């Protein structure tokens, strides 16, 4: 599909801008604080260029782009090997969508400009006891008058919050009622991460990173003014915005994986396996799989643009990407042999780094987080193939 004239112009303008502005050497960053600063810097630079929030409506700076334009922007950012905006992800997608679609004017006026100043947000949805059953959350909020204000007093624990240690604010789901259907007692709050009673503990991950955090909440006071939607309407607010980014994110990540196939080529050459037909066939099969992940993400966006998205389409894209990412990493591990078992430094914020064991371990984040592969399979079976839903209860 060839770009029409406007898209072609956008593409060439962006390429020229990237030639000037794309950050170099960002993979060498070796601590999170520096990584967070670099992320903020690149976000602000992109914003200045008009490419940071193409999915926001006009007249936000650089907003009002069509989906086709957004795709061009993400393709070019991936192609130029610029860092993913990992730390602005929640603020510019989920927080922004929540604010724009469900929040009050006062909330919008306060928080959207702050996001554009480089505020990082995190998500406080998952809980240790709930897992894939998100609606089973237990983090409790009681409405009281305290410190002279009308507040929710929140106590409980959240988990799998990406880079929460650097977040300024949190999209928080809490339980305000425990009778009735579990979804109905959930309320959506915007929480200041600097508030008293908030403790963040980074989780040491198996590849040695600490990208995910636990958040402990001990009688944290969140003003009622920071509630989005009505009390008990939090589940609907979360659902409305949860998948807001999926297509573009996975398109970007798929193309990044495609763009990183040279790492496999390099590895094959370095291992002297360029004439090993088994390796060549496995590589060829991987290329087909990676290309299919790209094509599927593209088709998903096409459907969305055409208003033809089907329930379950996002699950197909997520499940495909997560499986292919695993296959990509595994091929590297198996070609590299013993040398890959030696522990090498990791790269923050990238999934295809050529540190194959680290990439392999990172790939689990995609098969488990954000709706595990198992949950996606249920959705596909039940919503696309119209097979019966999992029963609500059973008779032993």
């Amino acid at each position, binding site marked *: 599909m060839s770009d029409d004239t406007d898209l072609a112009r956008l593409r060439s303008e962006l390429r020229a801008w990237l030639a000037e502005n794309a950050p170099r050497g960002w993979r060498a960053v070796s601590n999170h604080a520096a990584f967070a600063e670099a992320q903020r810097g690149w976000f602000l630079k992109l914003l200045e260029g008009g490419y940071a929030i193409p999915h926001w409506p006009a007249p936000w700076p650089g907003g009002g782009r069509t989906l086709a334009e957004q795709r061009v922007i993400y393709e070019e950012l991936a192609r130029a090997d610029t860092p993913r905006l990992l730390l602005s992800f929640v603020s510019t997608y989920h927080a922004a969508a929540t604010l724009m679609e469900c929040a009050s004017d006062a909330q919008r006026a306060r928080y959207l400009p702050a996001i554009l100043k480089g505020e990082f947000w995190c998500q406080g949805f998952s809980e240790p006891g709930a897992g894939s059953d998100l609606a089973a959350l237990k983090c409790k909020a009681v409405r009281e008058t305290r410190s002279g204000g009308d507040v929710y007093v929140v106590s409980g624990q959240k988990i799998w919050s990406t880079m929460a240690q650097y977040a300024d604010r949190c999209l928080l789901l809490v339980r305000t009622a425990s009778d009735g259907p579990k979804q109905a007692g959930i309320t959506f709050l915007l929480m200041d991460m600097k508030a008293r009673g908030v403790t963040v503990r980074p989780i040491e991950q198996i590849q040695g990173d600490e990208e995910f955090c636990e958040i402990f909440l001990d009688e944290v006071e969140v003003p009622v003014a920071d509630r989005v939607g009505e009390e008990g309407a939090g589940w609907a607010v979360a659902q409305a915005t949860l998948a807001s980014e999926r297509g573009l994110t996975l398109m970007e990540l798929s193309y990044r994986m495609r763009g990183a196939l040279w790492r496999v080529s390099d590895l094959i050459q370095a291992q002297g396996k360029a004439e090993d037909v088994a390796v060549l066939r*496995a590589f*060829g099969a991987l290329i087909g799989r990676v290309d299919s992940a790209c094509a599927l993400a593209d088709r998903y966006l096409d*459907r969305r643009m055409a208003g033809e998205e089907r329930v379950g389409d996002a699950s197909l894209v997520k499940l495909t990407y997560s499986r292919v990412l695993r296959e990509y990493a595994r091929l590297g591990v198996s070609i590299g042999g013993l040398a890959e078992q030696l522990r090498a430094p990791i790269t923050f914020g990238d999934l295809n780094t050529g540190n194959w064991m680290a990439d392999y371990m990172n790939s689990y984040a995609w098969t488990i987080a954000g709706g595990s592969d198992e949950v996606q399979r*249920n959705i596909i079976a039940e919503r696309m*193939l119209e097979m019966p839903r999992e029963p609500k209860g059973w008779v032993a």
Partner: protein
Amino acid sequence: MGGMSIELSELRDAAQKAFPADHLAPPRDTAWGAMAKMGWLMLPLSEDAGGLGLGRAALATIHAEMGRMLSRAPLVPALGVLRALESGEALADRSQWLERLATGEYIAASLDFTDASPGTLRAVPDADMASHVLVTGPGLVALAPTADATLVETRLWDDTRRLFDVTPGASLTVVARGAGAEAITARLREDLMLGIAADALGGAGAVLAMTVDYLRTRRQFERPLAMFQALKHRCADLKTQIEAAEALLLARAVEGARAQDIGAMKALACETFRFTAEEAIQLHGGIGLTQEHACHRFMKRAELNCWLAGSADALNEAAGRAELAG
């Protein structure tokens, strides 16, 4: 297939109307006549030459529909040859040839890419109904009349296909020479890979749909089989693999796609069909092992597709080498 143009949806709808899914593998010769009547034999022909001017996306669409209903008619080689002749600079009376093909004359081509047997063309579909067979060689593309050739039919597990070994006689009609011949040969191979890949994914979709229907209907242990989560997850995985391969097929069904990329796609598509059909038989239980049930026909077609127009091993190896070199 989704996200397709109106033209392609119309083509697909027409195919589904002409060849409904509940009437699998209709007789070859009547199907062929119907295809000619509907103008499918000139689908890719340029509008100047009296055709519909539809490109590879249309070919992928129509071949997928043919896979879905286990078509016996040799549309994949027929349309590939049509495009080859249209580009045949050295072919005398080219427009008459194209007209003959567009109205129902069939010229066959080999679907065996291994080149193992000089002199004899292997795996030529439906050579019995062909007037000629297309012969490709270094710097030469030509037509050999079947009247003048030896045809030996090979008995196949796949009962929806007929393949022949064809040993042409001496008389040849030149279609192209030199660089033109090389280009035609290369494009023909791409068309054949795309055609078989589309056929495979049409078949995969059909056999999965048949399986899901069966699981929804069939009850065991006082519940529909489709309630068992282990079976649901296997179906979901098949659906995902098919959708991803379909998306890639459509992405590659364009002029200018690189041969190695089409090849890797073909390998993926055919492996997807093969695995889907294998799972389909298992998920059907005993009934899937009977000749009466259509499951095995998809399985046998899937297995054969793996070896027509290039094997996964050969195509993946080529894709890997190309990426290494690139």
